[in-house]
């Protein structure tokens, strides 16, 4: 390279750096200026205690306070308590919270009650509030779950992940295990693509654990006999892979749930899904009957299961955090096993292959600090803060995050989890757009738990649940 060329490149590099520094300082200037009007304000938020939420509390909130002078107190609590507190606050109009976590499945209920501020409109009405680094176009399509009928955004996405099929690469690649599996089943050991394959692998490893005296089982199961987590695993992760979508309820057919009325909740496919899952539960580690989403991840991280369906929010720490996980560097990621036809349904948009989980921060209409809260929500939505957040919580809500070198490095450790989220996330789906989410779940859950304990036969239990669903929907006024 000639001297002139070197000089030219240097000048360009300096110019780019100067522009970046200038942009950064102008951003800092914006936050400082915007925060001036809200000195002394303390924002209160409530969210579930998860890795992504804890990052907001421990990292983003202090950073925001440093830039703006606005204090942010984030309360991280259990999933049940979070909803209890948020709903009571918004229902009573007390205005305690300026930000509430909205899980994707509750957004429809909140929108139906007009609990949330239209953030798009708020920024249109207050252009001075709009941060130069905030743009709704930065979000992935997951943000669409939080849009109202007018297309405006009612929640700022803060986490998004898919419930994936994790498997132990060390076991699947072990020549001794492979040979034993081949001898027993006549086929090569590789991640399952069908339920039959998954069951075969699970049975094999549970037996392998027994024979070799190790604490190893063939699968995880989120099968708590008194917590809603089991209900969700069945309806959102298992039943869809048997072609039973939207909990088996047909919203376009007067919310029918029973087969007799046009629903699918007690269909043959739903019953097959239930029996498949109950069998997996029986060959899963004994703690499975007390496991919610968190414990399933812990079981997998403890090296007690060869494979399992695990919420993506846990994928990063399972695969990379040696202080918590015994299977660092031994985790593979794959699509969930499914019945024939389900993938075609997912690709055509008629169905889906698993649960696309996630949530947003919403701004309650009852908040007394809407503008200051909107500043904070924009702050956490910037591309600039996303990469480290993704590393801490394996969550991605902005398109640009996928291209960050740190994220790509973690993606390699995760055997392509983020790549799967980006490329195949569209095949997964969040909860159906029902405003009666928790109500229907709690009405049918007692029957569901009795199926799990064996007090009610699975076929009969699903019949009862479908009837109870229709009864509840009628009582709530949705089914005519």
């Amino acid at each position, binding site marked *: 390279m000639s001297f002139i060329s070197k000089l030219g490149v240097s000048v360009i590099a300096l110019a780019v750096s100067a522009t970046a520094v200038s942009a950064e300082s102008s951003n800092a200037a914006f936050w400082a200026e915007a925060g001036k009007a809200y000195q002394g304000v303390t924002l209160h938020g409530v969210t579930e205690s998860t890795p992504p939420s804890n990052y907001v509390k421990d990292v983003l909130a202090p950073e925001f306070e440093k830039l703006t002078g606005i204090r942010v107190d984030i309360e991280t609590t259990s999933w*049940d308590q979070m*909803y*209890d507190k948020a*709903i009571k606050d918004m*229902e009573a109009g007390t205005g305690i919270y300026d930000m509430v976590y909205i899980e994707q499945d509750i957004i429809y*209920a909140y929108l*139906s*009650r007009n609990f949330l501020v239209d953030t798009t409109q708020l920024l249109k009405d207050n252009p001075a509030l709009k941060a130069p680094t905030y743009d709704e176009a930065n979000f992935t399509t997951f943000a669409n779950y939080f849009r109202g009928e007018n297309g405006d955004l009612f929640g700022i996405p803060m986490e998004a992940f898919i419930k994936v099929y994790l498997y132990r690469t060390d076991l699947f690649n072990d020549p001794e295990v492979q040979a034993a599996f081949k001898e027993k089943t006549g086929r090569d050991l590789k991640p399952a693509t069908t339920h039959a394959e998954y069951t075969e692998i699970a049975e094999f490893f549970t037996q392998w654990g027994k024979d070799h005296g190790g*604490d190893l089982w063939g699968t995880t199961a989120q099968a*708590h*006999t*008194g*917590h*809603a987590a089991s209900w969700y695993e069945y309806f959102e992760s298992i039943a869809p892979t048997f072609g039973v979508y939207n909990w088996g309820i047909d919203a376009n057919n007067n919310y029918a749930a029973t087969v007799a009325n046009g629903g699918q909740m007690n269909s043959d496919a739903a019953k097959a899904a239930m029996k498949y899952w109950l069998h997996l539960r029986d060959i899963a*580690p*004994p*703690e*499975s*009957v*007390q496991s919610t989403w968190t*414990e399933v991840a812990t079981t997998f991280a403890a090296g*007690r299961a060869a494979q399992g369906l695990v919420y993506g929010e846990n994928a990063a720490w399972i695969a990379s955090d040696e202080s918590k996980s015994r299977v660092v560097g031994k985790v593979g990621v794959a699509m969930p096993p499914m019945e024939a036809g389900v993938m075609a349904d997912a690709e055509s948009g008629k169905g889906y292959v698993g649960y696309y989980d996630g949530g947003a921060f919403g701004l309650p209409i009852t908040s007394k600090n809407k503008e200051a809260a909107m500043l904070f929500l924009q702050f956490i939505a910037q591309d600039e803060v996303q990469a480290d957040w993704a590393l801490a919580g394996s969550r991605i809500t902005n398109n640009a995050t996928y291209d960050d070198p740190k994220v790509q490095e973690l993606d390699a450790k995760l055997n392509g989890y983020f790549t799967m989220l980006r490329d195949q996330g569209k095949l997964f789906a969040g909860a159906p757009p029902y*405003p*009666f989410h*928790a*109500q229907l*779940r*709690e*009405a049918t859950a*007692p029957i569901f*738990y*009795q199926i*799990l*304990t064996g*007090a009610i036969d699975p076929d009969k239990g699903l019949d009862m649940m479908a009837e109870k669903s229709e009864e509840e929907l009628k*009582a*709530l*006024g*949705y089914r005519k």
Partner: protein
Amino acid sequence: MHPNKLGWLLLAPTMLILFLFGVVPFFYVIWVSFHQWNPFAADPSMIFNWASNYRQLVFDAQFMASLGVTLAFVFFAVLSELVIGYLLAQAFMKDFPGKAFFRTIHTLPLIMAPIIVGSIWKLMTTPSIGIIPSLLDSWFGYNLNIGQSAMAAFITTVVMDIWHWTPLVTLSLIAALVSLPADPFEQAQIDGANKRQIFWHITLPMIRPAIIATVFIRLMDAMRTVDEVLMLTGGGPGSATRYVGVHIFKEVFPRTNYGYGSAISVIVLYLTIVVCWLLYVGLIAPRNTKKG
């Protein structure tokens, strides 16, 4: 200022707080119980439905089952706490090395929030990581899994309640025992009474007011137990530990069935009063009648 007026003035803040946070919510719950109200229904408004909620709960198998297991829980937990509490109180009446240390240790569960107690017991009873299943397995070959066995879950909740609340009973009974005069015991010993006779005819009658007060407190507490059980079992397996407090929680909070949940709350309050009244009639009233 007239002493009466001053008295009322000094009481006024307490009465105002009690009125605002006790009386008003109580009547509000009664008012809500006569309505159909679910804020996430197609019609989220409160609709007056007379006594429909009360009629519904009589035929609600889930509620009846819940009431049944609650009464069983209360019976076993409170009775056990009373017996163990009395034995411990008697033990602490005697001098032995390390008495002060053991008395302090034994009261520690009392200062723990119920939700913490539930978490601790969950950790201790989870198969594979819990110390209790591990010990039971190595000592007796018994496989404890409270997510699977209804009976094991029920017994564990009772044991957890005993662990948490027996110290309260012990402390109450120690207070009663230390205040007993020595004369009747000395006279009984001179007259040749044995330990059983002294317990039955002197100790028990003299500490009966303390026992009854303690039983009332524990009974009311046990009837409304929620946090510990919700954390430990979630009401499961199935509905094995879905005590009325847990049942009300699930109806009112996740299901947001405010009207029906309020009706259950009112009935449970009424039942608690009835049970206390029955105890009063059975244990205190006959004695007062004899005195009269």
